[in-house]
């Protein structure tokens, strides 16, 4: 993977996103709505016996951070589809551009969007009364975990784009995957009050790993072994899907 090419590709996508103010507004307003909507809708759940947290908005905020990272990244591959619908992808693939750089540059641009969204969700959470005892380290781990979620699911989205080459298929698959991942996790509900099978499913859910790492690291007395273990799973998952999605360029080239 060429660092120079990664930087060039990152610059291209970042410039493109700044030029779409409507898209920026949408990607920022959407998480704000989720946080406030779900915060209101489910605020009563903290009264269920066994629910760990006493403030639902404080519980929900790191969850919405991860949900936002997941949902936004599902769209990542649409950038590749547009390149394939024009001749941009073919021109690039017939040039000496590094395939890793082509993937990584776009994912970094996607991760920078996630970074801004995460900070915004925290700001809205704070305004709504969410307070954390964990300090700067907790915020930092949450931000990194959200960017890993964005990168992992962004690369999956890019891979699906390269394999299906169809906007409709990409959006369909992305919706099909992201909603179950959101609900089969501790994003909205403390696992203590969720059905057993949801907890079993959540154990294999990268979005839940990120949520656990974030919530633990923001707590007054974090279980650091759990934070590092879940972060390590998440990092490994991101690297594996990143590598696999870069391989998808070959599959695409075989079919053109």
């Amino acid at each position, binding site marked *: 993977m060429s660092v*120079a*090419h990664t930087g*060039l590709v990152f*610059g*291209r996508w970042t*410039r*493109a996103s700044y*030029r*779409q103010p409507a898209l920026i507004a949408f990607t920022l307003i959407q998480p704000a709505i989720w946080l406030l909507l779900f915060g209101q809708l489910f605020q009563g759940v903290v009264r269920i016996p066994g629910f760990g947290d006493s403030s639902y908005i404080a519980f929900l905020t790191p969850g919405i951070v991860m949900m936002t990272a997941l949902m936004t990244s599902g769209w990542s591959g649409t950038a590749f589809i547009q*390149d394939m*619908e*024009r*001749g*941009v992808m*073919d*021109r*690039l*693939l*017939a*040039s*000496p*551009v590094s395939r890793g750089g082509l993937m990584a540059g776009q994912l970094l641009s996607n991760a920078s969007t996630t970074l801004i969204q995460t900070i915004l969700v925290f700001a809205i959470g704070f305004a709504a009364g969410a307070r954390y005892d964990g300090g700067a380290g907790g915020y930092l781990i949450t931000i990194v975990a959200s960017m890993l979620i964005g990168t992992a699911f962004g690369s999956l989205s890019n891979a699906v784009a390269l394999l299906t080459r169809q906007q409709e298929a990409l959006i369909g698959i992305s919706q099909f995957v992201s909603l179950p991942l959101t609900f089969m996790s501790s994003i909205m509900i403390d696992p203590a009050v969720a059905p057993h099978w949801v907890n079993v499913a959540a154990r294999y859910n990268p979005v839940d790993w990120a949520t656990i790492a974030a919530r633990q690291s923001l707590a007054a007395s974090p279980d650091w072994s759990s934070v590092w273990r879940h972060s390590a799973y998440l990092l490994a998952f991101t690297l594996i899907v990143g590598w696999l999605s870069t391989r998808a360029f070959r599959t695409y*080239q*075989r*079919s*053109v």
Partner: protein
Amino acid sequence: MATHALEAVDLVKTYPAGRKKPPLRALDGLTVSVPEGVVLGLLGPNGAGKSTTVKILTTLSRADSGTARVAGYDVVREQDRVRRAIGYVPQKSSSDPMATGLENLVLSGRIFGLSRQDATGRATELLERFGLAEHGGRAVKTYSGGMQRKLDVALGLVHQPRVLFLDEPTTGLDPEARADLWNEVLRLSGQEGLTVLLTTHYLEEADRLAGQLAIVDHGKIVAEGTPESLKSALRGDSVQVELVDPDTDGSVRVLLRQLPGVGEIVVEGNTLRARVDRGATAVPAVLGVLEDKAIPVVAVTVSRPSLDDVYLQHTGRSFRVAEEAA
């Protein structure tokens, strides 16, 4: 290096069957070569295998069998060297619509390893040359089709390639923009000695631009040569007879075939096209025999051999019919 800038031998490519699609043999033993500094026109209807050939030669796709060398490098074993030596202008517009013309060119230059300064210099030079200087700072999505196509060609030239691939460069352009782009391509080959492989399904375009022509049909080259040599290899003229009613029983065809100096005849709908030794003597004879049998005629025309006749000669169908079948 070899005197050929480009050599492909016996390329075969089959696309696997898809949903509701049988497997497609896009290339069926295609062999072609282009001498250095020559514009080769790959002429054929849609689906003949032109784009597939270009995709294999630009390393984008891979042939099932056969070998190809571009600028002296093997397209499979020396992919990276080939990619550095070529410019590729795909059939569809290859610029980023959200970026400006200048940004597109600079990014492409830098991917090929130019410094920011060199890339900007080269980009500015190309914008000027293609008459886009005053639009360089605007997003490409605001460009007209002709402007976008010029930018596409400029994108293929940023890194000063040795071989340029133009896949249907003027499809979808209005006549003015097309003529404009033709002049650019002629200048490229004339002044810079660039080797160009151009695919087209416009006979006129092939005639204007290409120093060498290769006619592709069903994944094979069926004829090769300069446009002039291909045309003069056809003896005589072409006579077209347009009938009021189609020659369903083939009787008119038989009548004409018996006339002296008339060669092969092809029937397409109401029209019969005959190769004749001399148009001037054939036309009165044709009209005479049709009048004798009281066969109503719309028009009879005589013409010098065109590329369409060359195409007809080698593929057994006229270009228009091949296009419609594709």
